[in-house]
């Protein structure tokens, strides 16, 4: 089935999500990822296909629509890639392609060097093979393949969903190894992951958090409220004093909107300020983020618009009539923080330095899905 304009199965759900993403009715990386999984599950359950390639084309088509709708919610694309990856994997294990799939997840640098891009081969190989249990392209019963494999695929999608649902817990599992008693931690913005991480550390450790208020969204206020409600000693400071207090800070914990392939990250505005100040004081910078934020893109820092410029009203009120006419106000929502400013990423898949993010990405997604 060629990628023709015939409507994607579950078309309506896709279009609804597209509209919501465009209108920013769904914001936040986890929320977007969750909605994407739900829609993809619907697409798969309604899809009609007689071999795996057709299904993949369908999913990619749906994914492309979603990503185009809102290229700035990177987790949408990531989730689509993840689902594709899991589907392929389940498919391969289902049709029991012996050799390549068994070593599929075992990746080392050395193997990488030796094999080049093993993924291409493994994906290409099973196309011709058929097994007794699952027969592709059955001319008598074109739906038999779909019937046979759908339960497995739904399970694969469920895995992605489960991972998203447990991501906070898994990220904060190791919190007490990173935060020690009597430390002073600085954070910025209101990232749920960071909040869960700090709260989890708060169960066992007695430490202090300084929250930068994160103008102009002032999401730091919510963060400070949430943390102090959990019994953690919390200070709220203006963004301008980040540098001044940096000498007292033991560690900076940042949330991320997206982690890029080069080890840099897109995070709420002010993060760059904090990370740069930390560099000047050699304070370690820790980034807490779920694996679903790993994004196989690396050139975003060239892209001015990627910082997502929101409306200027939180910087300059619309009622300042005369000023509005004469002043150009910009209100970037995100900062790009380069890999050289980050010390470690804490994910639900373990801790990684920025230099190995590319490897995580290789493991998580298939190469040929990078461009949807």
């Amino acid at each position, binding site marked *: 089935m060629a990628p023709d304009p015939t409507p994607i199965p*579950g*078309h*309506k*759900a896709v*279009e*609804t*999500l597209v*509209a*919501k993403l*465009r*209108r*920013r009715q769904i914001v936040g990386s986890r929320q977007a990822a969750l*909605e994407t999984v*739900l*829609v993809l*599950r*619907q697409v798969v*359950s309604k899809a009609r296909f007689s071999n795996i390639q057709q299904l993949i084309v369908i999913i990619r088509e749906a994914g492309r629509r979603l990503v185009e709708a*809102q290229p*700035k919610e990177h987790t949408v694309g990531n989730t689509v890639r993840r689902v594709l990856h899991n589907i392929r994997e389940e498919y391969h294990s289902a049709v029991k392609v012996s050799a390549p799939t068994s070593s599929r997840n075992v990746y080392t640098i050395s193997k990488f060097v030796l094999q080049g891009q093993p993924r291409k081969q493994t994906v290409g190989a099973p196309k011709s093979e058929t097994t007794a249990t699952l027969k592709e392209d059955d001319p008598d019963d074109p739906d038999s393949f779909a019937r046979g494999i759908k339960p497995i695929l739904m399970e694969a999608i469920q895995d992605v969903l489960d991972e998203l649902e447990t991501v906070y817990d898994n990220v904060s599992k190791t919190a007490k190894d990173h935060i020690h008693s009597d430390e002073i931690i600085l954070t910025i913005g209101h990232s749920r992951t960071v909040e869960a991480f700090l709260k989890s550390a708060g169960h066992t450790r007695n430490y202090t958090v300084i929250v930068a208020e994160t103008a102009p969204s002032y999401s730091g206020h919510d963060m400070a409220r949430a943390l102090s409600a959990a019994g953690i000693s919390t200070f709220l400071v203006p963004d301008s004093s980040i540098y001044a207090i940096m000498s007292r800070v033991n560690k900076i914990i940042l949330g991320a909107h997206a982690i890029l392939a080069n080890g840099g990250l897109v995070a709420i505005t002010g993060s760059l300020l904090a990370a740069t100040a930390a560099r000047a004081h050699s304070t370690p910078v820790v980034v807490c983020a779920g694996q679903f934020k790993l994004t196989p893109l690396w050139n975003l820092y060239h892209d*001015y*618009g990627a910082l997502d*410029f*929101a*409306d*200027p*009203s939180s910087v300059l009120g*619309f*009622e*300042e*009539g*005369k000023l*509005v*006419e004469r002043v*150009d*106000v*910009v*209100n970037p929502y995100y900062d790009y923080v380069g890999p050289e400013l980050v010390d470690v990423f804490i994910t639900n898949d373990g801790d990684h330095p920025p230099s190995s993010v590319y490897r995580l990405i290789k493991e998580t997604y298939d190469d040929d899905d990078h461009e949807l």
Partner: protein
Amino acid sequence: MPPKSSSGNEKDIAEEDEVLQAVILADSFNKRFKPLTVGKPRCLLPICNATLLDWTFESLALAGVQEIFVICRSYADQVKAAIRDSKWSKPSTGLKIVPIVTAKETFSPGDAMRDIYTHQIITSDFVLVTGDLVSNVRIDEVVRVHKERRRTNKDAIMTMVVKESGATHRTRSRGESGVYVLDPNTHECLHYEPVVGYPATSRVTMPREILAEHPEVEVRYDFIDCSIDVCSVEVPSLFQDNFDYGDIRRDFVYGVLTSDLLMKSVHCYVVKDGYAARVADTRSYDAVSKDILSRWTFPLVPDDNHPGGHQYEHLRGNKYIAKDNSVSLSRTCKIGNNTLIGSHTTISANASVHASVIGQRCTIGPGAILRDAYIFDDTHVGAGAVVEGSIVGARVTLGDGCRVPRGCLIADSVAIGANAKLRKFERVSKKREARPQAAGDGSDGDDEEDSDSELEEVEANQEDAAQIIGRDSNALVWPHPSPDDDEELDERESFYNQRLMRIGDTASDLELSDGGSTTSASETETESDFSGMHGLSRTSSATSASGPLSSAVDPSAETSAIHTLSSAAAETEFRSEVAQSLERAFAEGHSVDNAAVELKTLRMASNVPLRRVREAVVGAIVDRVPLVPGDAAAQRAEIAKIVRRWGPLVDKIGGVDPVETVEVLQYHCAAAGPRLPLFAQVLAQLYQQDLVEEEDIRAWHASPAARGEGVKPGSALLEGLKKCWAIGAKMIEQFESEEEEESEEESEEESADEKPAREAPAAKPPAKEDESESEEESDEESGSEESEDAPATAKPTAPKAAAVSSSSSQTSKPAQTESEDSETDEGSDEFVSGEEEVSAEAPAKPTTPAATVSSAPSAAPAKAAAESSDESEEDE
């Protein structure tokens, strides 16, 4: 799980599974965009490369509207085609769009509303917008607030969405705006006064009962009218009933608020975050374009959610370039800030583009300069041409080196010759090809004919056109409007006022500053500026005294005195009319409702206060009772018959005020000597018919008017009043003992002893105090905050308690918790201090003149009271 996303979406938009409907008035009903709108409806003009209609649809879709009716008149088939071909008509959008073509005789939004009414398409509360709206306001939130309000107040028929801005904001229309008088607590719009920019408005009047009824009012002259109205179902029917309503603001809102017959209220929703504005004229076209480009409409910005579906890349300095790599920018061209360039456009060497919007497939010649220019699709700008502050239509060719100075409007398909120099504010459209074709167009309908005649007029004046538009031009130059030819236009469309709405016109030569600026300052600052407020209220009272202004429902004696003075003649006429009307009603046995309608009309016609009507009705009822001297039972039966039949009329004449009814009854009986004995029985009968409650009788009895204050002593009237009052006292006495049968018996001996009656009032006040004290005590126990309400309930005249009183009650709170014993004493202390501090605080809010009078003396006792409670605390 799967359908969750869609159905969940619908649910939080329209609770109770109601479909949220919207009506778009796609016609502008004016000619401000001529000649751009020759051969094209205004809602299909592009702004930032998407049609205005698309922006409107997107704004509504954002709010979760599911069903949209598009009311179109001019070029309806174009609008219909545009809707059919757009992405909105696809089923996946979840929108149902129904174009409705109205009759050609539709000349105002009011006509369109009447059309909506006749179509019977509206089933529930709906959103009414114009077809030129750009907004990212959460209208669903406004609808929710509106519905919530409707649940408690059925008369809140409309919620207008307004946005705060400065009085001189670029997006705010200077030529057409309004002064809003709001109650800051309920956001009820108490008064609306349309304002035009020229001639400068120097004063605004508002009915003074607004100040009497509302302790706090805001007078606002800094709102952008977003033209988003959440209306209830009865709004179209109101338009139907009032055939002269044309404009929604100037006629409908103004009419509803000033009418005391409709008893409807209009509310405002002041948008805090979000953007909404309409493209009502070329000036706002410029302003809204700039707002979109500087991202005030986020997420409705070109690079994110462009309603036309185009993809743009956002570059530093708010430059937007089409994303598909089809734009060709010369290496030496200059692209300034706030610029949008559509796909397949070529910008040649050394051209410079600043703060402009360029459509798709345009070519900008070498060295051309565009500044604040809006160029629609497929237009060619020649080499070295200069376009400033102008709108250039689609498929236009501007010759090399031609100059388009600010304010020009160039219609579609015009060709302007090389080196042509247009004058400022030139309007140019294309010559029609041949006559027969035009005639064929004309048969389409009035509107086209209309524009035909206009074009003919234009064609007649083309003597000097050639020098302006150059050779090889196919253009017609429209004559400049002059201030003389607007006799037939209303003030909004007058020449000078239109100048304030024109793109590129600074209007600096217009006389706007003198009187206008001082008043507008006091209008905007009245919240903090008491003297300004005072000035306003004074002017309003002055007008109400001089002319028959509609400050009607005011029971206080002085206002009615003013009315008696001013419109004595009208009143005598009214009185005779009412008497006749009632006579007819009684004689012919009309239903109460019909009689009420007749009275209402009469009252409107002669513009008299409600009290007069009440007097007339009560008088007529009393006079209607045949006197049966000697036989008390028969008399009672007669009265009961009459009151049962006609009593309800008293409450149907436009307002319910039983206290006034009793008072009126008293005065009438006292004045008409022989009917004095009837007072008690009629009152008792009114009470039995539930037209008058026990409290009302008490309230009447306590009022100074009931005791005959202000009436010349020694007159027969006063004597009668006193008797009635005594009867009332007796009645109250009987209420207290709750023996009604006896009361009727006794009241027959009406001439009897006045002594006990006179004692009753003396005994009464303490009883009342006891009551209120016990209330205080219970309030005390339930919590100190409750005590704020106590003064309001116990003494209706006390100003509403405010924040200060709660703070004062907090000061004495520790004492309370420490000692249970002294609680009651402290409680009463606190009560006093609370109430008095409220009035001390009142001058800060400039709206309660009554409070200010009492403020100065009461401040000291308040302090003393606070001290005394402190002392008692120390005692513990």
